[in-house]
């Protein structure tokens, strides 16, 4: 914990701190980490993504945390009971996650908390459960986010320092197989539901949807914002390593062993920034949104103009390719 505090003390004030994992609540000291983040980084918002299994611990965390900073808690639920349990590999995944949602939903105001659900679409059966899950969440007033699972991420790879970034503009390999009609239907439905969201969240979600549709259905990379990895967006791994981004875990330094100033000004960081600059662009929401916000591409999306140089349209490939699952 003193090491984390030492790292946070050196960082500038931040707009957003996202705590994720692995399962962040697997750490019994998450409350201390959140307090340190709120004290030293003074974010406008704290965000935590969780599988929601540890209901008691999560509720206690929400009760005990300092509430001067709003908390955005995003629970991952990938379908209705049987599907979610299958995806998460646990027979009690649905029971525990929904218990967490039900415990926190009535207490959002008191706890200065917004509650969302993130459905990761792993395959066609998952996509078919969108409506059912939406019907479950609606009475609880919980916003339903949807992302498409990609086949592989460097961050969660078992290999160290690996580059799994797209090799061409518009590349996106889905984790599972889909017929294009199913993909179209899913995003049409999500887009209709998103129409009721507040304008900023709606804008951000539509931006993501436009990019995922274009990539998955047409192989086109539009929008394609410039990337702020190792710039406005800093990633930090559990051991203090600073990787390049979600899809390239080449490490530029370690904040447990080096100062932030040293890492940020290092030759390794400069080299990786040059790599970022020529990267064709990925489509993971956790990278896309900071990219869109900090380069202003999100606002430009209000008018039709792409972020990077005009993208060559690549051939559509029906049905949407689905590689052998990576896990």
């Amino acid at each position: 914990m003193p090491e984390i505090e030492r790292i946070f003390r050196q960082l500038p004030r931040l707009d957003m701190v996202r705590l994720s994992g692995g399962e962040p609540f697997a750490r019994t000291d998450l409350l201390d980490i959140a307090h340190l983040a709120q004290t030293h980084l003074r974010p406008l918002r704290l965000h935590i993504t969780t599988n929601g299994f540890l209901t008691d611990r999560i509720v206690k965390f929400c009760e005990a945390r300092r509430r001067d900073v709003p908390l955005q808690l995003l629970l991952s639920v990938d379908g209705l009971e049987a599907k979610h349990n299958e995806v998460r590999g646990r027979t009690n995944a649905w029971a525990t996650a929904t218990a967490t949602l039900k415990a926190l939903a009535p207490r959002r105001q008191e706890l200065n908390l917004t509650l969302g659900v993130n459905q990761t679409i792993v395959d066609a059966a998952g996509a078919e459960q969108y409506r059912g899950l939406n019907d479950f969440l609606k009475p609880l007033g919980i916003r339903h986010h949807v992302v498409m699972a990609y086949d592989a991420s460097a961050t969660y790879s078992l290999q160290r320092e690996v580059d799994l970034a797209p090799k061409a503009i518009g590349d996106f390999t889905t984790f599972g197989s889909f017929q294009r009609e199913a993909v179209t239907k899913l995003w049409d439905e999500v887009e209709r539901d998103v129409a009721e969201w507040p304008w900023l969240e709606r804008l951000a979600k539509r931006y993501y949807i436009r990019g995922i549709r274009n990539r998955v259905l047409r192989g086109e990379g539009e929008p394609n914002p410039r990337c702020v990895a190792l710039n406005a967006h800093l990633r930090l791994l559990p051991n203090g390593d600073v990787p390049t981004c979600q899809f390239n875990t080449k490490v530029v330094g370690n904040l447990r062993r080096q100062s932030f100033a040293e890492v940020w000004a290092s030759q390794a960081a400069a080299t990786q920034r040059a790599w970022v600059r020529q990267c064709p662009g990925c489509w993971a929401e956790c990278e896309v949104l900071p990219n869109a916000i900090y380069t202003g591409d999100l606002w430009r999306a209000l008018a039709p103009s792409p972020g990077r140089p005009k993208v060559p349209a690549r051939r559509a490939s029906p049905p949407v390719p689905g590689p052998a699952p990576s896990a």
Partner: protein
Amino acid sequence: MKHLRFASLLSQTPARRRYEVGLPRYLTYLVTFTCNARCIMCDSWKKTVAG
């Protein structure tokens, strides 16, 4: 305060678009790779490095 931050965010966007190096404003901190789930689409739980 929020307005000031938004104004500074907007004022920095041209530099970010030119890939000029600035300070971070957004932190993604993976506090652990350990996981109590066994998801089919994510290998975090298979990683041996605990946080």
